[in-house]
């Protein structure tokens, strides 16, 4: 299934121009409106950063796109599949890294990857590739419970990308990582993006958004308040004589 689905998804991306699409997404938790009619799309091969203050709705949006949370209204599509109506197809095509991920602590690094490979119907080569890609070779036999937070984050990233997804949804992917590993992961993600993987990354750190994404979505109080290219933000900052973070902070107010 693994190889076939990858080929299929690769072909699909040529027919589906928008690999991520949100149409009027709404989601409330009791009286709190987390998303209030969010609509946007990301072209196949695109890389978009999702910026917003705490509680803006970034994680809720990513969970809906990942098929882990049903919206009250609206439609989410990944690789052209409605994630609620065609969850298997959509999930086969995407990788998702949650905020504060928790790998399987009582399995070794390799077993974690083998487990998710079995769930996804991948063969052993996907495990080997993920270990190689995230530099986990020296710790592959260690239990996940014995790893530092940074190494667990690397493992979680490996679990999210091991099937080389066409769409990658990342929630604060560089949390807990040391600076060399951050650089390594940024390089890896940029390579994946260059190879055709569509990336939607939520982050609080503007410098990461600048390096990982070509476009920025600013979300506040459940609504998209600005969308544009990273270079537009840079130009706005230059014109105003401000730092780019100050421009973004103004957009979030």
């Amino acid at each position, binding site marked *: 299934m693994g190889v076939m689905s990858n080929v299929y998804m690769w072909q699909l991306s040529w027919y589906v121009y928008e690999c991520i699409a949100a149409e009027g997404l709404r989601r409330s*938790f*009791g009286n709190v409106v987390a998303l209030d009619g969010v609509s946007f799309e990301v072209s196949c091969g695109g890389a978009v950063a999702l910026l917003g203050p705490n509680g803006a709705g970034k994680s809720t949006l990513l*969970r809906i796109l*990942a*098929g*882990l*949370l*049903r919206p009250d209204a609206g439609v989410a599509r990944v690789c052209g599949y409605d*994630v*609620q109506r065609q*969850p*298997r*197809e959509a*999930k*086969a095509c*995407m990788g*998702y890294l*949650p905020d*504060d*991920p*928790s*790998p*399987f*602590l*009582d*399995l070794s690094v390799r*077993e*974690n990857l*083998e*487990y*998710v490979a*079995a*769930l*996804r*119907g991948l063969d052993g080569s996907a495990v080997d590739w993920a270990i190689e890609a995230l530099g986990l070779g020296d710790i592959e036999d260690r239990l996940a*419970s014995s790893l530092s937070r940074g190494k667990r984050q690397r493992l*979680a990233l490996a*679990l999210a990308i091991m099937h080389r997804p066409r769409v990658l949804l990342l929630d604060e992917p560089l949390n807990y990582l040391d600076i060399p590993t951050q650089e390594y992961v940024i390089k890896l993600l940029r390579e994946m993006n260059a190879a055709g993987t569509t990336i939607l990354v939520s982050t609080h750190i503007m410098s990461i958004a600048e390096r990982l994404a070509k476009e920025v979505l600013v979300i506040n109080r459940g609504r998209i308040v600005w969308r544009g290219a990273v270079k537009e933000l840079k130009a706005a900052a230059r014109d105003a004589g401000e730092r780019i973070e100050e421009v973004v902070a103004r957009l979030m107010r």
Partner: protein
Amino acid sequence: MNARRLWKIFRLNFKMMYSGWFLASIASFFAVSFVASVSAIWTENYAFLFLFLGVIALLLAFGGGYLGVAKSEVDFVFSTPVNPLVVYIAKTAALAVLSLFLFGAFTIYLPRPDVISHVEYAASLIFNTAFFVLMAGASPLVSIRRLILYTAPQMAVAAVTIVKPELSPLYGLVYPSPFYVAYSGAAAALAFLAIPRNLLKELATNAYGVLGPSRPAEDGDAVRVVGPARIGPTPWRAVWTTSVNRVLLEVDLPLSAVAAAVNYVLLRLLPEMGFFNASEALVTLLSFYLFCFVFLAFAEVGLDEERLWLSLAVEPARYFRLRMLARAVMVAVLLAPWAAVYVLMSLSYPPAARLAPAVAALALTLPAASWLLAAYSGRPQIRDLELPQSLFRFTLREVLAVFLYFMFVVFLSVPYILCVASMDIPALAPLILLDADVVSVASLALSAAFFYLTTYSPWAPSIWGWFVNKLSENGYV
């Protein structure tokens, strides 16, 4: 999905559920049961055997929590295209291994006349195991209201196994026959049909919605603190209001009172109707042990929701002293109906009075002991979604913690056992009863000393320092 892939999913779930040392300890238990099975007592006293099977059935009925969803699964299972039902079945099959061991350990060596009876036994063993693990496995997934639909049949089977074994599907494990194969098979089929498929299907597209804070109000309300109580301004007020929640007052307390009343009815009324084959003394003792273990599970509640930084909000030793005082009050309230039941029972069965001081000793020890044992066992923390960070794992530490607690419970029951013995040896009764009094006083004094040790003593900071360190090692933040 091919067999190799299914096997890998099962194998890795099995590995997550059991440590190697735990399996070794279970194998040892199996070997010990073999020795017991060849003894005269074991093979001739099947009434005693049905008591054990009933107790195992009750423990399995409470074992569903082991199949609850963990945060790891939300992060990395439900985000894959796999059908959650496949993972659920794999986890249930992994739990079934323990169930097979437990039921088999007590029955596999019983004498059987021919090959057919062995086949009937094997079928009964598999069907009974399937019934219990499928019903228990569903219980942590369903709402509190639906929970009773899953636990009541298991409780009923456990109860009839003890009271009237012929009515139980477990009877086929001791006396195999085509009827009991069909009976246990029907029970297993019903349990299979009762798998919460819609809920599992929902997990594939709405895991955060099903498991998160937006789930139906009956569950969401359960974790809130009581009413409009103000948290603070004093540390005691803060600790008290976060110790008492609606589940405790609206579910646990009525449940404890009802269970105590049911226990009273079972122990006092049914023997008079000629239901029990085993002796009243033994049934009372086993019911006390069972109640002690169920209460241990209740008393552990709350640890997984602790946050280490909370203990730094006030001076750590003071924080844990206040927390233990609040928990002691709540545990005492929950235990009160049981003490009352034993006093009431003593009117017609005097030895039961000796269990009331044991209940008081539990109230003094359980609040701290349950948390310390759970920390030692490596219980995972609950952070997001009210889910544990990792799946429950059966380990040797769990076995040792349970064994330690069992030894303590046996110690608490010594006065009762002595009192029962005094009825059989009237000549020595005054001396034996004096011994019983001494042990009762000693157990209460030791329990009070333990309570002091973990709250006001100069050693309390060291104990809670170890505890916090252990939780930190277990991944708590």
